[in-house]
């Protein structure tokens, strides 16, 4: 039998409010957000509204969905559209976190690293002006969001986005990240 007790202990230790592992889609995302919204719309922790949590979950998941969608246009092996999504309250830090993970092609790790590192140590003011600059870059109907996703996440975070890459499967690297609000 599945060790639900161990899972439960793990979630409790990590202050998990919600966790998901498996197939991801836009429908799944809207249902998760809808369910959380019903429970949390008036929720406020440490000056963060529930809407900030939703925004980060949305950006994370749509990043994953866009990544999988993009694969159809390049000639690489297609990774399964699976992901891990979670949010909760870190008990030691007393902070809300959102975390997630998905498989990526190993050769994409550098690009992702560069994207996150380039904004990790910017001040709130710098993040804002970088965001506005990028948003301005021309009317472009094909861009999937023009790389605004990580910037949006970092703007709502209280410390640099934490991330890592792990070789746990033959098919690809597991890219995981955690954001503290």
């Amino acid at each position, binding site marked *: 039998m599945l060790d639900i007790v161990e899972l439960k202990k793990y979630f409790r230790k990590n202050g998990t409010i919600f966790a998901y592992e498996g197939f991801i889609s*836009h429908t799944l995302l*809207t249902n998760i957000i809808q369910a959380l919204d019903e429970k949390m719309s*008036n929720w406020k922790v440490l000056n963060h509204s529930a809407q900030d949590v939703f925004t980060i979950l*949305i950006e994370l998941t*749509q990043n994953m*969905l866009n990544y999988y969608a993009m694969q159809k246009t390049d000639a690489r092996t297609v990774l399964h559209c699976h992901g891990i999504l979670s949010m909760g309250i870190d008990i030691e830090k007393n902070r809300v976190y959102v975390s997630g993970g998905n498989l990526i092609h190993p050769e994409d790790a550098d690009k992702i690293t560069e994207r996150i590192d380039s904004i990790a140590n910017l001040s709130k003011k710098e993040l804002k002006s970088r*965001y506005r600059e990028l948003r301005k870059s021309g009317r472009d109907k*094909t861009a999937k969001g023009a790389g*605004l996703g990580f910037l949006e996440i970092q703007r709502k975070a209280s410390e640099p986005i934490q991330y890592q890459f792990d070789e746990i499967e033959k098919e690809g690297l597991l890219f995981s990240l955690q954001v503290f609000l």
Partner: protein
Amino acid sequence: MENLALEATNSTPEIRTSFSDNSIEIRGKSYPENTFEFYQPLMDWVEAFFKTDQTKLKLTFEIQYFNSSTSKVFYDLFDLLEDARSNNKSITVNWEYDPENVSAEEAGEDFKEDFEDMEINLVGKP
């Protein structure tokens, strides 16, 4: 001109345009599966509207949360409005937000800073 009337869904806002009232209302959440496709009819409507003799347009936004692609599309929409404004059309934007929702207010401020010459009113509505 035919008006747009889209009902809100879990991930898309309600959109109503009125040619006779010179108005557009966008209310709800916005993180469509394909943001650019979703907003194309609205962008087309706005472009067509400014080709008519109408001289003013009032837009009301009330967005609880949105994804970054929506933010980009809204920027492009404001850009269209700015073009119209500099062609002597009168543009008013009311950006409504719940005062508890700091991010929604900040999103309005971002647009105000980017489009200084436009009349953008931030309206706190509990």
